[in-house]
């Protein structure tokens, strides 16, 4: 039994111009010692998809179908209060853009201890001590417990976010573009921290990014999203070595390799489709170099092609 099982999830935004099918029937699962990467261009629905795991879908958006089963319980029908108790305690999240994700007028110690006090019956002093040890855990040092967010650098703020997210020992951590906007050295340090936490706390993580190298460094498995759908899924190493879906190929081909031969980088022509009126057949069809007649008419299903590899493409038999 997987820790998290998302089945045929559909999230639509009901806007004035029409229904935006931001997430249109995706399924994935995360087991107890797995790190899953979710990759795709901006606007492909990856953030919407994981926000729904915390039930953070706000109007005009709505979860219109599917199930999100966490620890054997579908969270979509849960009451607001049940959902609140799960947030921070069962499922925690680190957001992109730590610059503004911390309250500017509250000390980081208070921001960390706040979440512990909410979910555990301990005294303020104990929570404060826990906040200090959380700061140590993320490599900041407990003496900074009384500092305010503006006294920290961007990387340190993101570490504080990790300290907050892991404060209650959640069973699942979601990281939404945690290193976007940080310089590469800080990115590296943060990824190293994530990896060490994962091992120390045996913490399953869903990692969202548009950066392939970030996934390569952290994730066991990866799912590639395009226009609200998962187009390919598999373990990171084999998917990177041998991408099957034309979109994955394009994505991986557009990245330079440091050690390999020098090739010209390929880009994918065109732009992702508008999700109000997506193409009828394969959503990648208008940009696909291998497009066939059938791609225009029939939407390919996500098929298992062996080795835990799933692809949604008519080319793959």
């Amino acid at each position: 039994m997987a820790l998290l099982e998302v089945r045929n999830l559909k999230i639509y935004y009901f806007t004035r111009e029409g229904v935006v099918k931001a997430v249109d029937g995706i399924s994935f699962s995360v087991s107890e010692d797995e790190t899953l990467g979710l990759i795709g261009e901006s606007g492909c629905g990856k953030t919407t998809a994981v926000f729904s795991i915390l039930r953070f879908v706000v109007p005009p958006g709505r979860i219109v179908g599917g199930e999100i089963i966490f620890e054997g319980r579908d969270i979509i029908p849960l009451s607001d209060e049940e959902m609140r108790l799960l947030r921070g305690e069962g499922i925690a999240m680190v957001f992109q853009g730590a610059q503004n994700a911390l309250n500017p007028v509250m000390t980081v110690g208070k921001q960390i201890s706040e979440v512990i006090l909410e979910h555990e019956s301990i005294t303020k002093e104990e929570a404060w001590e826990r906040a200090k040890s959380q700061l140590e855990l993320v490599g900041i040092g407990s003496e900074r417990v009384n500092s305010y967010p503006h006294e920290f650098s961007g990387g340190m703020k993101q570490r504080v976010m990790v300290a907050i997210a892991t404060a209650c020992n959640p069973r699942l951590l979601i990281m939404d573009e945690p290193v976007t906007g940080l310089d590469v050295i800080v990115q590296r340090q943060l990824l190293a921290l994530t990896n060490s936490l994962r091992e120390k706390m045996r913490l399953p993580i869903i990692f969202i990014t548009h950066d392939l190298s970030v996934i390569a460094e952290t994730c066991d498995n990866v799912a590639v999203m395009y226009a609200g759908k998962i187009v390919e899924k598999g373990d990171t190493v084999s998917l990177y070595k041998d991408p099957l879906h034309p979109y994955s190929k394009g994505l991986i081909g557009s990245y330079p390799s440091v050690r390999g031969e020098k090739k010209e980088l390929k880009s994918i022509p065109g732009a992702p489709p508008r999700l109000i009126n997506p193409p009828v057949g394969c959503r990648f069809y208008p940009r696909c170099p291998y497009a066939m007649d059938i791609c225009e008419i029939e939407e390919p299903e996500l098929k298992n092609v062996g080795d835990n590899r799933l692809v949604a493409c008519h080319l793959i038999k």
Partner: protein
Amino acid sequence: MALKGFAGFAIRKVGAACITVFAIVCANFVIFRLVPGDPLRMMFKDPRVSAEQMQLVRERFGLDKPLGEQFLHYLRELAHGNLGISFWQKRPALDVIADRVPQTLLLIVTALIIAVILGTILGAIAGWKMGTRTDSVILTIALSLYSIPAFCMGIILMLIFAFQLSIFPLGGISTAASGFTGFEYWKDVAWHMFLPALCVVFWYGGEYVLLTRSAMVDALGQDYIITARAKGLKESAILKNHALRNALLPVVTITGVNLAFAVAGIIEVETVFSWPGIGRLVYDAVMKRDYPVLQATFLVFAVAIVLANLVVDLIYGYIDPRIKVGGEE
């Protein structure tokens, strides 16, 4: 920067306030030399007063001297706490003002406290419930109250509650020749103060509702609110500790600036309700071209506003942790 921390911040702010006050003192002198009209003509309307007698008075008030000399004289006397003699009441301008200060403070402080508390609470609720019926009701009422000028609101209130319904008095601060003492007297004052205070509360409170609401809406859209939600905090905790705490920062800032507008409001309200405070004094002094009193009230108002802004700045440095360090970096 040589000065560090809160002390340095405070010293810089106080220094800036002193410079501002000096600039106001200079402007105050210049303005009254620029206004058209001769105060002596107002003092002596009697055509029998001869030109020699006028000249004598002019010399006595030092108005025959060159401007530069007058200015130095003005500064010297100011330093000694002498703001001139009221043309109208023939006694020191400062005494004239001092008689009026307590009444104004009583009215404005009471009304402002009520307005700020009510306005902030209602504004926070409206911002929190943005887009709902509660929000529309609060917003509509606040906007209507804020857009009606204080004197107009005063007349409307007076017409309804004092004239038609006769629940409250038409004006003044206490019932004349009533002989009330102690508690009875204060009850009488409160009864007289109700309408003018309500007028200030409506006008000022409406503004605070609008201000707090927009600051609240802004704060609620910030990323740290999503972080707070992701922590699984209760809605009340998110509202209080995260949204309101941040929304109050701009509200505090505006309070200092707004005091300047409160001066205008107090002149209108006191005049409409014949409340014997500084606002009413300004009105009378303008009518009688009592320059020394006007000059002195302007100075008192200006210093009060500068002081209020100084206090706001110091409070701000205390409630927003980013400010103190901001001065050093």
